[in-house]
Structures are given as structure tokens and as C-alpha cells.
């Protein structure tokens, strides 16, 4: 990609610089422990208006971070992970909205997490970093909102694990969120979802280089385990149809070699994805994120009745699912919609035809973009933006 031409594209937010905010106000966590102090790293795109009424929050998924749009430097090969949606003229239009994207606690991209030095020991937290939940994240994001002077988000937006944070926001802070965009999410994980997460965790923890999570001290990383975890995850993000279309049974060398080296293209692709991931992600963070997913179940505080959990929400919802997503299939989104309908809440639901699997929520699929755009126009209009 030629850097400058891309940076100068009219619909890019261009060069962005993350900001780090230090909190010294202790944060109580669901696990019973407290973070005495912590950092949150975040990026913003667009301008906060005088009334501070045009802020939208982007919540990231399992392996995401605060870098959702634009470029950190002219040398970057790729923009932020949701660049397809954030920018002037895009659904989350930075000409109207002040977009905030934050790296969650427990992350490995600048917010306090396992790789951070624990002030109590002078060593990285590693496996001693508390297990954080979606509720904890939302609580920390609310403090970021306080700092930014945002009393109420025009919208909170997220896909997958990000969508779960949106749901939690609408339940925990109903007065602080006007619109909720819950994309490719579920109200809780199924046993199958948890099973996949457990295999991923076992892959990491059984790697001899894991050292019970203290691998930093040994100057190694559980490369093989994290790679396996990512390969497994990746299979669940794609659909059977997409894999067939992309790889079929194509052989790298055009013939069977009767060995266990890479033979099929799909094997080569998965190994590449796994290896690339190891370079950019921390194994302890991966473990934490999968736990946050497993634990998410807002209905459990309300007698396992999702309708009851959503009884107090006041936000207007857009729920989106994708037909080819088998990780969080449309039926899972329908559970959320149904619970909202039970309470006569404002909700629209779109089921987008797409064979990209769970990852479809990151793709600029025309019908999907159209729906996001239509809803965000409503967000802008209702907020007088």
C-alpha cells in the first residue's frame, strides 16, 4: 500500500495517536479483588461537540484493541481493525460523532494487563492479573467517560465480545447510553462456545514454555500453544462455505506427499494466522479474554431471565446477526431481540446474508453498511447532531 495516498483518502481518519489515561482511584472487580491503579489506552476520532452529546464508544472483541481506525504511522501496512466503519462518510461518521475506542483492562496493547509491571512486586502481573469480567470493563469505561466529560453516549457499539459489553452498558448504566448496537453477539456463551475456549486455554497452558504464566521471567513465550489457540479460534470465525470457497482441498505442491508437513492450502493459511498472532498478542491476555467471554451472562443476576435483565434498559437497540456465523449464530441474537420485545423496548433487528462466518461483522458488506448507516443517521437525528 502506498502510504501517503491511503492516508490522504477522504474517508480515512488519517494519522492517529493513542492516549494513555492513568487512574489512581481503585477499581473494585467482580472477582473480589481491587486494582489500586491502572492505565487505559484509547484513541478518539472526530471532535467532541460543545454539548458533549455526540460521543460514541467502540468496544472491541477478543483479540481487538483501541486502534480501531486510521494509521499510527505512514509506514503502517494496515489501518485499525474497524476502519471500514469509522471515518468521514462511513457509518460511524467522524464528521458528526466523536468516536472513542479503548483497550480493555487485561489487554496487552497499553491498558493495564498481565504484561504490565505489578507495582507491588516490581514484576509483570502475568498469571496474577485478576480475572476481569465484561462488567468490570464497562465500569472502567464509565470512568473513562467521566474523564472525557461524556455523561451519556450517543451510542455504544460493538461486535462479538464487544456486543456483550454494549449489552452490559445498557443494563448497568441505562441513563448513560442512548443507542446500543449489538452486532454478532450472544446473551451468553453456549457449552460449545465454552468448550472451544477451554481447548484454546489448554493449548496455551500445556505448552512447556508457558511456565504457569510466568514465561516473561524465562524470556520465552508459549508460542506453540498460543498459535494452536489462534488456529482453533480462526476455524470458528470462518464458515464452512467460506473455507471451501477460499481453499477447497487445494494442495500447495499439487500432490500428496504422504507426510505431516503442510499439504493443503488451508493448513498453510491457519499456520500463517497462528504465527502472525503470536507476534502481536500475549498468551495471558488471551486466557483472560476467553474467561471474560465464558463468564458473561447478564441474565444470571436476574434469575436467569434475560427479559428481566433488560427490563430497565432505555436505549434504542440495533441488533445485527450474520447468516453464516455459527459461533454466535442469528438464533443467539434473536434471544436478545426477543427479550427486548418482551419489555416493549425500541429494537430493530437485521439478519445479514453473509458467508464470511463470525468475522463478517468486520467486513464492509453492503447490506450491513446500509443498515449501520441508516441506524447511525437516526442516532444523529435524534441527538440533533
Amino acid at each position, binding site marked *: 500500500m502506498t502510504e501517503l495516498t491511503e492516508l490522504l483518502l477522504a474517508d480515512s481518519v488519517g494519522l492517529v495517536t493513542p492516549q494513555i489515561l492513568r487512574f489512581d482511584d481503585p477499581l473494585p472487580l467482580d472477582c473480589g479483588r481491587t486494582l489500586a491503579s491502572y492505565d487505559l489506552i484509547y484513541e478518539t476520532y472526530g471532535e467532541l461537540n460543545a454539548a458533549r452529546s455526540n460521543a460514541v464508544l467502540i468496544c472491541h472483541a477478543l483479540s481487538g484493541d483501541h486502534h480501531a481506525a486510521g494509521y499510527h504511522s505512514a509506514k503502517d501496512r494496515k489501518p485499525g481493525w474497524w476502519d471500514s466503519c469509522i471515518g468521514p462518510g462511513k457509518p460511524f461518521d467522524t464528521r458528526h460523532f466523536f468516536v472513542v475506542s479503548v483497550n480493555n483492562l487485561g489487554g496487552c496493547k497499553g491498558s493495564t494487563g498481565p504484561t504490565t509491571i505489578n507495582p507491588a512486586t516490581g514484576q509483570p502481573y502475568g498469571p496474577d492479573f485478576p480475572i476481569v469480567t465484561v462488567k468490570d470493563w464497562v465500569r472502567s469505561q464509565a470512568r473513562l467517560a467521566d474523564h472525557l466529560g461524556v455523561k451519556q453516549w450517543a451510542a455504544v457499539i460493538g461486535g462479538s465480545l464487544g456486543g456483550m459489553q454494549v449489552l452490559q452498558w445498557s443494563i448497568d448504566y441505562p441513563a448513560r447510553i442512548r443507542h446500543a448496537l449489538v452486532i454478532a453477539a450472544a446473551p451468553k456463551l453456549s457449552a460449545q462456545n465454552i468448550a472451544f475456549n477451554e481447548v484454546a486455554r489448554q493449548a496455551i497452558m500445556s505448552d512447556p514454555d508457558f511456565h504457569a504464566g510466568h514465561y516473561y521471567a524465562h524470556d520465552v513465550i508459549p508460542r506453540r500453544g498460543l498459535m494452536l489457540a489462534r488456529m482453533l479460534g480462526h476455524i470458528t470465525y470462518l464458515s464452512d462455505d467460506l473455507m471451501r470457497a477460499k481453499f477447497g482441498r487445494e494442495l500447495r505442491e499439487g500432490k500428496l506427499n504422504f507426510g505431516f508437513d503442510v499439504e493443503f492450502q488451508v493448513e498453510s493459511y491457519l499456520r500463517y494466522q497462528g504465527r502472525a498472532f503470536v507476534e502481536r498478542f500475549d498468551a495471558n491476555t488471551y486466557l483472560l479474554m476467553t474467561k471474560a467471554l465464558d463468564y458473561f451472562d447478564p441474565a444470571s443476576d436476574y434469575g436467569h431471565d434475560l427479559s428481566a435483565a433488560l427490563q430497565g434498559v432505555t436505549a434504542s437497540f*440495533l441488533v445485527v446477526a450474520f447468516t453464516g456465523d455459527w459461533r454466535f449464530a442469528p438464533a443467539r441474537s*434473536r434471544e436478545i*431481540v*426477543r427479550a427486548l*420485545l*418482551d419489555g*416493549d423496548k*425500541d*429494537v*430493530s*433487528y*437485521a*439478519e*445479514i*446474508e453473509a458467508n464470511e462466518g463470525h468475522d463478517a461483522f468486520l467486513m464492509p458488506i453492503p*447490506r450491513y453498511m*446500509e*443498515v449501520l*448507516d*441508516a*441506524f447511525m*443517521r*437516526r442516532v444523529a437525528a435524534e441527538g440533533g447532531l
Partner: protein
Amino acid sequence: MVISADTGSSQTALRPDLDIISQWITPGSRVLDLGCGDGTLLAHLWDTRQVSGYGLEIDSGNIAKCIRAGVNVIQTDLDAGLSDFDEASFDYVVMTQTLQAVYYPARLLDEMLRVGREGIVTFPNFGHWRCRMHVALRGRMPVSRTLPEEWYNTPNIHLCTLRDFEALCAKKGIRILQRTVVDYAHHSNFAMSLLPNLLGEIALYRFQRIK
């Protein structure tokens, strides 16, 4: 299933029947619109009757249009039923130009009166004299202004006449509260009210369950 191709394309022509329907609807009530197309009816009812409620629509091309119109829309297949909705949760369940295009119209009528206090439907009258002439004189399936498709590509798989519909209602214990017939341009006249099944091109009904 393509049920909204029909509603969508004739949306501008449909406006007068939306007027008739909105006159039937008590202001401030809760409305569920089955096969809501681009949301025109609900947006209209919102403006003129301050109703609340949802539209159900299957055609993905219409979802963004509904959202843009400020309508709460749920993308769903009506043939899968209305199981997402509780009993008696709406004052009216409305279905314009869709009854004839679903797989299970009788079951859907039951569902309408399960979730709604009253039902309102509109459908093209297959008993209109032009339809009858098509079959009687030309021996062909009717193609008309209200039924523009050929038999092999029509989404309208369960066509009926006024009498057919009323017979079904009688069998199901459904009381018809109001009936209007109009022509293609949604005008009515005295002759039409005398011979509705022969002269009416589009039928509009409001009905409820006999307690």
C-alpha cells in the same frame, strides 16, 4: 419467499389504502405490521395516530429503509410464526398485501389474533370480474393490475376471493368488524359496495376473535 416485492413496487399506489387503515386504528395504540415493506404504513401511523410497535419484514433491502424511516423493524420470516411475541401484546396486527403470499395463511390468521386484539388484512380479490373473465373466457390464469405476475413466478401462492376469506373466518370463529373494497387506485363506489366480490379489486378487513 418474496412477499415484499409486491408491496414494495406498489407502495405509492398503496397510500390510499393506508389512509383507510389508519382511520380504522385508534390513536395511541400498539401495532404490529406483518410484511411492513419499507415501513411506510408504520411511519404514517406514527405521524397521524401516534402508534407504537414493530414491523416485521423478510426482504433485506427493506430493513435499512425502515430504520431510516424511524420504524422499529425485525427481519424475520412470517412463515416461522410470531413466537417472539406474547399473547395479546398488540391492539392491532396489520398485514397489507401479504396474506396471499405466505405458506400458511390460516395459521397466520390465528397467530395474528393470538398476539393482537384485532387483525387488519388487505389482499387482492381473486373474485374480481376481470379475474373471472380471464379464467372463464380465455382459460388462463389472471394477470391484472393487482396481480401482475404470471402463475409461474408469482409470489402470490394463496389467492382467495372475498367469499373465500369470509368462509375461512366463519370456520375459525373470527368476527368481521369492518370490510371495504376498493379498486386499483383505492377508490370505492356505490356499485362496489353492492357487489364487492365482483367489483372490488382489493379487499380490506378488520376482524377479531369471537369470544
